[in-house]
């Protein structure tokens, strides 16, 4: 029955951005090291896309990567970007040194929920407090994926992990509230289910002078999805959850579990419990930036020269 219905080419065409990714540049095809259903592929692709579309100068935008599954994003990010691998949680401190040594640079920091809010919590608070010019992406999958599914500071109440085998009962830490209190000047949260919003926020962060914190909610199917039901975050609805065993189901769960900032204004704490509020929380381009303020001091002390 040829000639009927849509005709697809027998060979899959190359993705237009494949040549810009690190593995595409080296081997001609995408080479993702992530599990099926992981959200990091989307993030890596979007990063490469923004990097290429905005024609960022790789020499001015070093990419500082923390420790977590997302460290393997190195195969997907733009091949020209200068990548600096750091210790667990220390990426904001490395970025501080780098920015102060060469104020022309604008570090882009990849960090995770355990990296940024667990081991590196102090560095995160203080980079926000200084309002040091950098774009910080926090990937929150509410679990320690790389070490095999342990509970994270962001694990939802009632969720199961290998170190919370019955249920997690600790209060979870909220990167956005922490950044708001610490004083970052651009703060937003989105999910990998909203890729265009993520790109928009990321571009805004690149053009913003000051600490930009973007929290990205991303699924971990292998360790979070397989252990938990999609009734998480819908406790007050009293529904019977089903297993999240495919990437699609996890994306659906993320979408259902997020509340827009405007909607959240009309919801009480019980309704917002275990859910993510997405949107932009602060945009303050006027706030003094650390390296600029330091340059003023240098100018004063330099006297005549």
């Amino acid at each position: 029955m040829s000639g009927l219905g849509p005709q697809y080419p027998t060979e899959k065409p190359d993705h237009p951005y494949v040549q810009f990714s690190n593995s595409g540049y080296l081997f001609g095809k995408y080479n993702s090291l992530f599990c099926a259903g992981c959200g990091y592929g989307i993030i890596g692709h979007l990063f490469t896309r923004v990097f290429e579309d905005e024609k960022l100068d790789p020499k001015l935008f070093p990419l500082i990567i923390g420790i977590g599954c997302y460290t393997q994003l190195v195969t997907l990010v733009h091949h020209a970007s200068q990548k600096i691998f750091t210790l667990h949680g220390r990426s904001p401190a490395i970025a501080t040194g780098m920015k102060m040594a060469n104020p022309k640079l604008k570090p882009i920091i990849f960090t995770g929920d355990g990296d940024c809010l667990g081991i590196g919590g102090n560095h995160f608070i203080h980079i926000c407090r200084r309002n040091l010019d950098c774009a910080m992406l926090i990937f929150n999958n509410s679990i320690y994926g790389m070490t095999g599914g342990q509970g994270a500071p962001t694990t939802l109440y009632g969720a199961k992990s290998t170190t919370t085998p019955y249920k997690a009962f600790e209060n979870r830490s909220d990167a956005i509230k922490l950044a708001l209190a610490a004083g970052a000047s651009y703060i937003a949260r989105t999910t990998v289910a909203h890729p265009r919003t993520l790109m928009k926020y990321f571009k805004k962060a690149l053009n913003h002078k000051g600490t930009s914190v973007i929290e990205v909610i991303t699924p971990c199917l292998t360790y979070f999805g397989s252990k938990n039901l999609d009734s998480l975050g819908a406790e007050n609805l009293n529904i019977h959850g089903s297993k999240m065993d495919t990437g699609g189901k996890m994306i659906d769960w993320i979408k259902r579990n997020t509340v827009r900032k405007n909607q959240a204004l009309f919801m009480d704490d019980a309704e917002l419990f275990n859910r993510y509020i997405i949107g932009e929380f602060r945009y303050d381009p006027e706030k003094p930036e650390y390296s600029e303020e330091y340059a003023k001091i240098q100018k004063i002390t330099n006297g005549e020269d």
Partner: protein
Amino acid sequence: MSTKNSKRYLPEGKHVMMGNIAMSEGALAAGLNFFGGYPITPSTEVIEHLAKRLPEIGGSCIQMEDELGSINAVVGASLAGAKAMTATSGPGLSLMVETISMAANLEIPFVLCDVQRVGPGSHGPVTSPHHNDLGLIRFAGHGEFQVIALAPMNCQELFDLTITAFNFAEIYRCPVFIISDAYLGHLHEPIYIPPKEELIRRVINRELPQDYTYKYSYKDEITGKYIIPKPPIVGTDYYPPISLHLPHNNTGFPITNALTFMEMLIEKIKSNIDKISITEEYKLEDADIIIIAYGLPVRASYRAVDLAREKGIKVGVYRLITVWPFPDEKLKRVVKNAKAIIIPELNYTGFIAEQVERVKKLETPIFKIPKVGVFHHPDDILNVIKEVSK
């Protein structure tokens, strides 16, 4: 990043200054651009002084949130092409070892001044000297690598050896430590600062090589020498396309069988030990009894030797300025004919005594003079010399 600014150098001549400040001025003369620190007694004067001095010359000094932050900022700044250092004391150094280890494996140059003090940290005699971090410095962190540690004994050397330390860091791309302590750091002494031209001549600058293709350190199979290229700089073309953070071969490709990488990290220092190891001999030509010392106890040892020589006892001092890497071969020659070895150290363990134990002849006795929290008085050493020479 220029060293042209005239405020960088103090005017030529004699200055009276505190040890910590002499060290800071030495660092500035060596081209320091970035200091990341966290206040800790007895090293606090360093960050206080540099917070004032670094903005004047277009550099930056930042007080980080903790020692973990300060050492990481130093590593970040060094990667961005600045000459960077930090200063701390024992408890701070304990927090820093994670990053020191990473920096050594990534071959990121930096200088760390350890102003050592007594005690575990919470309270107490923190302004007393105690050379208790020698072991920590030697094996500072997880993983295998070698560090360089220099031990000055007066304010003049704090100035001069800091310049040497920065040069070593640039050449060998490894963490370089300055072993100071609470008394030395707070000692006020006159120092001579050479003219600007002389200082500029002494310093090895951080600069880009002629050829921009990035090369990794490796062993040249033909000559057997270790080739250490200039450190990479973020924000220039001179940065590796494949990152440094994994054990890699000479093309930068990550390798699982990392023996050659570890060999390179360790042998690049050990094979250059003749250039790195700085030592000083004092009345050693005909000495039967040899005092081996580093840091502050050297001063008391020199005096004790003078007094003993007046009494006709043949005694001399072998002084280690470079403590790590330990100069095994040099020392073997020195202690070969010794009748006895005296080691005054400002700790009980005897970190250097342990090393001397390895290289000395079996029958040569070692007499340790441990002190913690207080100076060695020349008489303390003289009494032992008299005992030994009986």
